[in-house]
């Protein structure tokens, strides 16, 4: 579904992405893991077209995404830090997005209800706490029932209840055969979700394996242990 070929991106002297190639197929739940500043968010932003790669290309359903925008109607994106216009209320943001996307698909408002956002619709975005903002971002990502979900640190800042709700929702989407990409540092959150792991370091792709392969290779059952194992091997 999403294929990246030899994607490189430099910010000044810093190589954010260094010759990345990867293939993501439907029905998978892929975890993007790596230390801070390893290029995870840049990779996600290049898939969304927010960052334009210096070289290489990315295709979405076989079409090059460069200068195209229609494909984004099939993506739900939850940013790491959701930034919204300050003087809009939660309701305004939802209305605006519905207005802009004008999607023919039925709206999936389940998360709005589960997160208890319906009662807070008139609150202004600037008054919201970080966690509530994350809830809004998550609800927006799932709202249009997209084929691909890209979630950047989805559980950071969410309380345990909300984080469980979100995880349930992700599992349900995965079962529907959608492609889900998640970056997270909370590996224990990912254990029950992911089917594949991409490990990045300093802008390069270290490996892209299914979770079973990873378990076999490292001999560890838990994702956190397995990744720790990999990281240790690299330093030694």
């Amino acid at each position, binding site marked *: 579904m999403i294929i990246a070929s030899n994607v490189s991106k430099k910010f000044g002297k810093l190589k954010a992405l260094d010759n990345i190639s990867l293939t993501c197929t439907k029905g998978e739940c892929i975890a993007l893991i790596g230390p801070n500043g390893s290029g995870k968010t840049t990779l996600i932003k290049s898939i969304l077209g927010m960052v334009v790669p210096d070289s290489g290309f990315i295709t979405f359903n076989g079409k090059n995404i460069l200068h195209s925008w229609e494909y984004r*109607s099939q993506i739900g994106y939850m940013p790491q830090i959701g930034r919204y216009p300050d003087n809009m209320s939660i309701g305004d943001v939802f209305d*605006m997005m519905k207005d802009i996307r004008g999607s023919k698909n039925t709206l999936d408002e389940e998360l709005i209800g589960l997160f208890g956002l319906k009662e807070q619709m008139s609150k202004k975005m600037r008054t919201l706490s970080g966690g509530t903002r994350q809830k809004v971002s998550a609800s927006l990502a799932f709202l249009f029932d997209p084929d691909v979900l890209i979630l950047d640190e989805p559980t950071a800042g969410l309380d345990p209840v909300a984080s469980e709700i979100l995880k349930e929702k992700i599992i349900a989407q995965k079962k529907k055969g959608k492609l889900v990409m998640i970056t997270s540092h909370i590996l224990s959150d990912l254990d029950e979700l992911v089917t594949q792991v991409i490990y990045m370091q300093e802008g390069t792709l270290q490996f892209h394996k299914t979770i079973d392969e990873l378990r076999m290779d490292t001999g560890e059952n838990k994702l956190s242990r397995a990744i720790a194992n990999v990281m240790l091997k690299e330093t030694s």
Partner: protein
Amino acid sequence: MKKIIKYVMSDILQNRIVLAYTFFLLVTSFSVFSLEDNTNKGLLSLLNITLLIVPLVSIVFSAIYIYNCSEFLELLVSQPLKRKTLWLSLYTGLAASLSLSFFMGVGIPILVYQPNKIGLIMLGTGILLTCAFVAVAMFAVVKTRDKAKGIGVAILLWLYFSILFDGLVLFALFQFADYPLEKVMIVVTAFNPIDLSRILILLQMDVSAMMGYTGAIFKNFFGTAMGVSISILVLLLWSALPLWLSTRRFIRKDL
């Protein structure tokens, strides 16, 4: 595109600064017209005020506004929207709302006191100037990432167009006083939309006789329909060119 313009315009028209700007223009215009019994004199005073205030507000307000809605832009860029559409809608929203407040503030008094050719030309150039300086602001903003720096650049650009440019031209005139520069001056004015507007309007009035030989040459050019159309074309170019350059830059910008 219409939807985004709608959101931008409804946001700007509720903005207190824009309301204050409209009110200020309205009060100034009415007071200037009622101070002078000769409406031509009133128009002249109004010209000097608007040529100073309109570019300043257009460029600084636009720059600050675009920086403040960077979150909004970021949010929209990740949605199924064309970046070009997004940027042009932002421009249209800004230019339309600021032109609207100019029309409310200056246009209505002009239509009341001076509903003739000069008044209409002044109204038109005011709106064109607004559009041009919004475009210049967008170009300055897309080039600089840092907010403080970008607003500084916007203010400097205004300073350049309203004060420094004239100084430089005057300096050059004195240096080359021995040469016939009258025709060159017509070309030079094209490089500054404010000067262009000023001369365009002044030459519609009867004050050009006081400007000596250069005034006569200017009258020959700007007084004709041809000259007026060329000046309007150049003013339009002042909106189109920065806008085109900024759009090209924005399409490739990393957010």
